[in-house]
Structure formats: C-alpha cells, structure tokens
C-alpha cells in the first residue's frame, strides 16, 4: 500500500528542515569570540560567574552535544532565550509578528492587484502598448533600490502632500510601505503572468473553449488562468514566505517594529540566540510554504497529483 502523494511530500521536508537548521547552527558556531561574554553583554565578570553562565547555557558541553540539544529544541519550537532581553526568543518573535504580517499582507494585496492587472493586460495583447511599456521598463524596475523608492514615497505623499501619515500602527500608515513592497512584487508577478498567459492562450484547448461559444472573459478566467497560474502562485508564495520573516528593508525605511528590524538589531547587538531563532523561523516558514505550494499545485493541476501518486 503506497502512501498518498501529499503524505509523502509532507514527510519529504523533514530532511530539508534538518539540513537547514544544521547550517544555521554551523554558521553561527563560526562567530568569533566567547559566547558567554556576548551573553553577558560585555559586563566584566569573575571566572566563577562566567563558568556558571557557561554551564547554564550548555556551552560547557562538547559541540556535538550542543548540536543535538539544538536540534531537539528546534524540533519542539524552543528557540532559547535572547541575550539582551533574557526572554524566550519564541515569545519575542510572537510579539513582533503582527507588524510584519500586516505589512506582508498589505504588500501582497498591492502586488497582486497591480501585477495581475498588468500581467493579464500585457499577456492578452503581446506587443500592445501596455506590454511594450512593461517589458521595456522591467530592467529599470529591478534596478530601483526599494529603500529609495520608499523614501521618495514618504517624501512626496507623507511630507509634501501630507496624504498619509508616515508613522504609526494604523491601517493608513500601512499604505506607503505596502505600496513599496507591492510595486516590486507586481513587476515580477506581471512578467510571469504575461509569459504564462501568452503560452497558454495559444493552446488547442483555448480554441476548443471558444468553439463552445464561451465568452472571452470566461475563456481567460476559467480555461487559461488555471493553466497559467502555477508560476505566479509560486512567486507569490515564496515572496510571502520571505515577507512574513520580516521585510527587512521596508521595515527599516518606515520605522516599523517588525521581525525584520528585530533581526538587524539582533545582528548589531550580537544576540546570537535571537539571530538564530529568527533565521530558523524565517527559513522554516519558507520551507513550509514551499510545501503548501506543492500541495496546492496538486489541487490546481490533476496531472501533478497522478504523477506523484
């Protein structure tokens, strides 16, 4: 009896998670300096205090024991305590998740609306004016520093026109950062939708759909989109995964206290458990969302389901 395809896929991520966590652990082992000193924040301490602290953090054990302990803790979601706050890292992450999640959703919303509209417009009329404008500005788009765009948005709409607040927790303070993220997302998304749609619209089954008398909207929305949708969904999913780990740059530009700015602060203060916890969180989210995407492909495209079965 073979396992259903989705169970196999779910089990398949275990080694990936394990390897990823191992790399995080290994890389952070390379940090020069005595972790105990870092944990104490550089305050001078007697050897006895240092030894106690070392024992408490398990740093007196050989590295491979530390490694195994690390893996065991990660597997149950125990990310340790931050050096500077002494709080559990998982709680610190949970407390800062909201601003990042809001921004991720806001950016995704702007990106999808803009990207889908442009991508469809360009894909249905290759070499039309929307397409030409889009394709010729693509290189310009990827060359724009997102933090500069963010600042220009603040300057124009926040400071000069005073249309939106530039700080705060309100939904209106989310507008400019969402646009900043959304613009960049939309560029990539529109190009993917465009090429997938151009490819799909020449397929024989599109002709069949027209021969049934269906409307152009229905042919595109039902028959073309579902076939063209996998690459754009992949892009969106992976971008979302990166964003829920914190839009590092945008959070900095708009002074939002999310996970991204927490990561930067953790690096600057050499708070190793916090860096480790945040990177583990981000990469795990990335892997899990990747998995969810694959499960979604199976729902969208029956051929994938049976190939994996």
């Amino acid at each position, binding site marked *: 009896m073979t396992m259903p395809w989705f169970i196999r896929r779910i089990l398949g991520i275990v080694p990936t998670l394990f390897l990823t966590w191992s790399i995080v652990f290994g890389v*952070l082992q390379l*940090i020069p300096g005595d972790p105990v000193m870092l944990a104490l924040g550089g305050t001078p301490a007697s050897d006895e205090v240092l030894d106690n602290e070392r024992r408490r953090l398990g740093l007196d054990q050989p590295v491979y024991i530390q490694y195994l302990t690390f893996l065991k803790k990660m597997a149950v979601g125990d990310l340790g305590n931050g050096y500077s706050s002494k709080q559990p890292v998982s709680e610190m992450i949970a407390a800062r998740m909201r601003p990042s999640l809001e921004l991720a959703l806001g950016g995704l919303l702007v990106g999808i609306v803009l990207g889908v509209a442009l991508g469809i417009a360009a894909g249905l009329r290759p070499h039309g004016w929307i397409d030409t404008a889009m394709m010729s500005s693509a290189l310009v788009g990827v060359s724009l520093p997102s933090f500069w765009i963010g600042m220009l948005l603040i*300057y124009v709409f926040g400071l000069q026109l005073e249309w939106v607040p530039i700080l705060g927790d309100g939904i209106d303070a989310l507008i400019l950062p969402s646009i900043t993220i959304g613009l960049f997302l939309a560029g990539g998304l529109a190009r993917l939708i465009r090429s997938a749609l151009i490819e799909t619209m020449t397929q024989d089954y599109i002709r069949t759909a027209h021969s049934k008398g269906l409307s152009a909207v229905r042919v595109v929305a039902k028959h073309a989109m579902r076939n063209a949708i996998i690459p754009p969904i992949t892009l969106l999913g992976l971008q979302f995964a*990166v964003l829920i780990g914190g839009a590092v740059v945008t959070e900095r530009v708009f002074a939002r206290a999310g996970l991204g700015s927490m990561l930067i602060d953790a690096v600057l203060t050499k708070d190793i458990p916090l*860096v480790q916890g945040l990177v583990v969180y981000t990469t795990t989210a*990335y892997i899990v969302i990747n998995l969810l995407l694959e499960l979604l492909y199976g729902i969208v495209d029956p051929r994938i389901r049976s190939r994996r079965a």
Partner: protein
Amino acid sequence: MTTAAPAAATTILPPRRLIARTLGAPGAVAGSIILAVLVFGAIFAPLLSPFDPNATRVCPRLAAPSFTHFFGCDLFGRDIFSRILYGARLSLAVGLLTVAISLVAGTIFGMVIAFLGGRVDRIGVRLLDVMLGFPAIVLAILIVAVLGVGAFNAALAVGISGIPRIARVIRSATLTLVGREFVESARAVGASQTRILRRHLLPNLLPIVIVLGSLDLGGAILSTATLSFLGLGAQPPTSEWGAMLSAGREFMRYAPWTMIFPGLALFLAVMSVNLVGDRLSHVLDPRASGHG
C-alpha cells in the same frame, strides 16, 4: 590518432567585435554612457571632487544644492557631490569584488561536483538546494552576523550568498560538457583530472561565467548598498551610497537632497550595469551558441 586531445573551442568573440555587438542596442548604449561616466568619476574622484568627502563644515549643515555644492550638504556640512563621487569608487569596487567571490567559488564548486559526479554531486546538489532555500538577504545578514559589520564584510557576505545560484548553473552547464567528445578523448589519452577541469572544462564554461557575472553585478551593487543602508555594511563616515541614504532618511523633511542624490546615483549605477549586462548576455547567449 595523435596523443593530444582536440582543443575545445570557445565562443568568446574577439573583444572588438564583442564590444561592437554589445553596443548594437539603444539601451546598452545608454547604459554604457552612464556607466562610463560613473567609472570615470570613480577613478578620478580625487581630481574631480571639489571638496574632501570627509571634511566637515565645508558648507552650512544641510545646505541646499547650489553652484558650489551641486548636490547640497549633509548634516555635518560635508559636500554630498564629493561624497557621491567617492561612493562610486566604493560601490563599483565592492560590486566587482562581490561578483568575483560568487563567480570563483560558485564556478569551482559547480564544476567540481558535476565533474566528480556520483555521491559528491548528490550531496553537493542537496547542499545547494538547502542554501537556495534561504532568502538571499537573510543569508547575507546571517553571514554578516558571523563576520561583523563593515564594507568589506558586507561584500563578502553578499558574495558568499551568491555562490549557490552560480554553482547550480555551472553544474548543469558542466554536466552537458562532461559527456562531450573532447572531454572523453582527453580522458582517453590519460589527462589528469585537474588538467581536464582547467584546460577543457573551464574555457568552455567561460562564456557562461561572464554572462552570469554581468547579470549579477547590478544586483551585487544593490545588495551591498542595502546592507549598508541597514547599518550592516560600510560604517560612517565612509562615503557609501547606502549609508548616505540611511543618514539622509532622518532629515529628508528638511533636506531631501541628502537622500535623493545618493539614491539616484545608486539607481543609475545599478541600471547602467544591468542594461549593459543584459545586452552582453544576449550577445554571448550560451544556449544559442551551444557553448561548445
């Protein structure tokens, strides 16, 4: 049969023709001109800049652009134009360093695992896949956490985080080569493994390596500037565009030029490199020319 394995041909055009063909598109011409101006400014920064980039109080704090201070002044009364010129030096140098790190390490890694094949290849690919599972910026930040902040370390971090992408492409390109006749015959005549790698595989991979590098340079400049903007790269008072933008962010209400001009310089640099790189990769397109 002679004992020498047939030399593998490469697709690299003579430089003059390469340049001529690269300039055969308006975007690339515009890119080249901007890039030439930037490179010129970077090289001759000491001669061209009207002020010492680090000298404070050469003008009133946050003074607006004027005929003496083209791009205005920053909080410490430093001349922004001069700082941008020196910033070009740093950005271009750091960009090249970054790409060199990714290319050298990525090419060696990809080439060797593909050439050795078998278990080495499987493990190598697995490792690459896992590394590619890290969002690029997170990987770079993680490496900075180890190395510590600074312009050089930021370049190193971005360079290292770019290795897996390069390695993956080079690996597949190598795989298509190792089965080819000239490699087989080199093996048959008993050439050593390093000799095959160096004399037969590497020259054939060169066009792809150049394409990858030219496509990566813009992104590398942008990423290192991003790290500096985040405070993880070049530190004050270094004249670096990302760091200047970060400082300019605080005062843009009163002195928008502190962020407009460094951002514009960064944007133009990245775009010009991308325009030229994009065109160059079309001209050299390894798939079209079969890299053989």
